[in-house]
C-alpha cells in the first residue's frame, strides 16, 4: 500500500516541527549539481556533493544521533541563501553551522576559513598561519578536503601558493565554477 505523498509530507513536517529530529536533510538542486544539505538544531552540519543519501544517513546518525529524516522545512533557510548565492545576489551566508563533529585544529581552521571574503583567494599556507600553525599547510589541505559544509564555509577560495587551484572535495570543475561566479578568477576561454 503506497503512502500518499501528502500524508508522507505531513509526517515529515510534523516530526521537525515537534523538535523530534537529530538531523533533518534534503536534496537541493544547484548549478553545481544536487547537494545534500543537513541541519541540526544548532545549524547546518553537512553539505555534500554527489551524495548517496543512504550512506549519508548512516554517517549523520553516527555523528549526531539516529533520528535522521529527510524533511525539507528545516533546510528552507539554507536553500534560500544558497539560491541567492548562485543567483549572484548574496555574498555572505548568514547561517549557523554545527561543527560538533570536527576536532580542535580543524575547528580553528574552519573558523578562520569563514573569514575569507567573497571573491578573494587565500592559500593553504596563509590559512595555516592565521590558524596559528604556519607550517601546517598540508594539514590545512586535509581540513579543506573534509570541510563538512563547503560553499557556506568557502574552502573553494583556498588555492596553492603558486595560484594553482590544487584540489577540491567536489572536484576542480566546481571550484572553478564557484570562483568564476564570485569573480575571483576569469572564465576559461
Amino acid at each position, binding site marked *: 500500500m503506497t503512502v500518499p505523498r501528502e500524508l508522507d509530507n505531513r509526517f515529515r513536517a*510534523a*516530526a521537525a516541527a515537534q523538535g523530534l529530529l537529530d538531523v533533518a536533510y534534503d536534496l537541493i538542486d544547484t548549478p553545481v549539481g544536487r547537494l545534500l544539505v543537513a541541519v541540526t538544531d544548532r545549524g547546518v552540519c553537512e553539505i555534500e556533493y554527489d551524495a548517496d543519501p543512504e550512506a549519508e544517513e548512516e554517517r549523520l546518525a553516527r555523528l549526531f544521533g539516529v533520528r535522521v529524516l529527510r524533511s525539507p522545512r528545516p533546510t528552507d533557510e539554507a536553500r534560500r541563501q544558497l539560491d541567492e548565492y548562485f543567483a549572484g545576489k548574496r555574498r555572505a551566508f548568514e547561517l549557523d553551522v554545527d561543527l560538533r563533529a570536527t576536532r580542535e585544529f580543524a575547528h580553528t581552521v574552519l573558523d578562520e576559513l569563514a573569514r575569507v571574503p567573497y571573491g578573494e583567494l587565500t592559500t593553504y599556507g596563509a590559512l595555516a598561519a592565521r590558524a596559528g600553525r604556519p607550517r601546517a599547510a598540508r594539514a590545512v589541505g586535509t581540513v579543506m578536503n573534509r570541510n563538512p559544509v563547503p560553499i557556506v564555509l568557502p574552502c573553494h577560495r583556498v588555492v596553492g601558493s603558486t595560484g594553482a587551484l590544487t584540489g577540491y572535495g567536489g572536484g576542480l570543475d566546481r571550484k572553478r565554477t564557484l570562483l568564476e561566479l564570485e569573480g575571483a578568477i576569469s572564465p576559461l576561454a
Partner: protein
Amino acid sequence: MMEAVRVPPFERFYEEQREPVLGQLRRMLGRDAADDAFQETFLRALRAYPALEHGRHLRAWALTIARNVALDVLRKSISTAADVPDLESIDEPLKYEELKRLTEDLPQKERAAVFLRYGYDLSYEDIGAALGSSPEAARQAASSGVRRLRRKELR
C-alpha cells in the same frame, strides 16, 4: 548470543515500515481515521526511537505502536448512546459514527471487536491480530458485545 543489529537511521526505518503500518491502520480504522493515526504512530516511534537498544524486530515494533494508536482512536471515539439495531440482521455495514455511538458503553475489548466485525467487516483472524488475541477470543468478544447490546436494548 544473537548478533547485534544496529538501530538504522530513522529514515530507513520509516521507509521500510510506512506501508505495512498504513495498511494495518486502514484495516482497523478505515481510510480517513487511518491518516491521522499514521502520523501519530510515527511520531510515537520517533519519540521512543533513541531508547531502542537494537534493530531487531522493527516491523513487529512498528505494528504494535500502530495497533496501540488505533485502539486509542477506537477508545476515544465515544459520543452518546442511542437505539441499538440488530447488528446481525442489517444488510449494510454501519457507519463509523453510528457504531461509535452505539458501542460506547461496552467494555473496551468487546467494543473493539464489535467495531471491527460490524463496522469494517474484518475476519476474526484479522480482529484477533489487531487486538493481540486469538481469532476465537475475538469471536467471543464480538458475540458477547452483541449480547450485551441486546440486553441493553430490552431494558
